[in-house]
């Protein structure tokens, strides 16, 4: 309806007159809304079951049986007709044949392509394996070198410690070492020159108790 109104001013006037009803008070004999609970007076009311006469029901059943059989037959007929046009027709059979032959051709092509790729892959893998072998041998070499270096370092450390062995404090020399330490106070609070000259703050020494 709105398509007919080419005049915009008129259209606006009409749309202004339309009212949108969000809620309307229902008139006296009317159905309640779905979200409203049943009336308190109808809480325990059981509605009576519909009474259908036996004869009438039998008649209805008989009619429905006839209707069902007829429609089943019709559906079957239509299905047969449809199959004739699709699956069993000559054109379709030809098409199927074509498809089968095409499928065979494609499979053959696929096989050829696979063989070609397999050859390339084989060559590449051979090359990769050679590379890997090279890398492995190199890694082994470097590892053995590393182990040797580590062993050398450890040997050096052991030698150094053996030399230092005489300077260790033992339980016999502990008392003398303690006496020596008590006599000689060591302070790390000093400044150092570029030439290695150590400057100590003599005033700070006095702060010691």
């Amino acid at each position, binding site marked *: 309806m709105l398509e007919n109104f080419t005049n915009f001013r008129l259209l606006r006037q009409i749309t202004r007159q339309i009212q949108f009803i969000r809620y309307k008070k229902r008139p006296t004999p009317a159905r309640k809304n779905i979200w409203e609970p049943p009336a308190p007076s109808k809480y325990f009311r059981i509605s009576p079951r519909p009474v259908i006469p036996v004869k009438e029901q039998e008649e209805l059943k008989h009619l429905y049986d006839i209707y069902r059989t007829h429609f089943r037959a019709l559906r079957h007929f239509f299905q047969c007709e449809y199959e004739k046009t699709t699956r069993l027709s000559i054109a379709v059979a030809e098409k199927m044949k074509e498809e089968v032959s095409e499928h065979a051709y494609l499979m053959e092509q696929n096989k050829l392509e696979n063989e070609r790729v397999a050859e390339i892959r084989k060559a590449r893998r051979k090359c990769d394996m050679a590379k890997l072998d090279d890398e492995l041998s190199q890694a082994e070499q470097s590892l053995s070198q590393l182990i040797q270096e580590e062993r050398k370092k450890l040997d050096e450390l052991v030698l150094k410690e053996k030399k*230092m062995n005489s*300077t*260790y*404090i033992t*339980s016999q020399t*502990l*008392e003398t*070492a*303690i*006496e*020596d*330490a*008590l006599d*000689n*106070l*060591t*302070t*790390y609070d000093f400044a150092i020159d*570029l030439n290695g000259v150590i400057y100590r703050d003599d005033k700070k020494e006095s*702060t*010691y*108790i």
Partner: protein
Amino acid sequence: MPSYELAVILRKMSRPELVTTLKRTGQAIFEKGGIIRKIENLGTRELPYRMRVHNHSHTEGSYFLFKFDAPTNTLTNLHDSFLRDIDILRPSISKVEPVNFPEECTLEEELQPPAYRKSVEVLLKQDRKKIFKKGYKNLSNEYI
């Protein structure tokens, strides 16, 4: 056996008493199968704050340093025994890491401003690489 340092603060005592407590600490290290390399006396002075240990408050203490090697699994026991000693105010054991000085290093190079130092140049290069990688990643997420 890794090497450790025991920096210990003793309560203010007379010299013979100090000797006995130091002996005790040394013997404790020996009993655990350790080696003492050096004992240093860092002096007796005022504590930085009042320390309350074994229900006595102390304002002065004498500082000593033990350089020793000991098995790693004995350290907790050692520290515990020191904590129980009445004459020790604060025992603290710390690991001594070996200092690896750079092989090629001259004073002239080190005295240059940071931007011209070789070590700083390496760090800058590393940073640049990181930034480039980040940018590339973002690009790949958006456009590829």
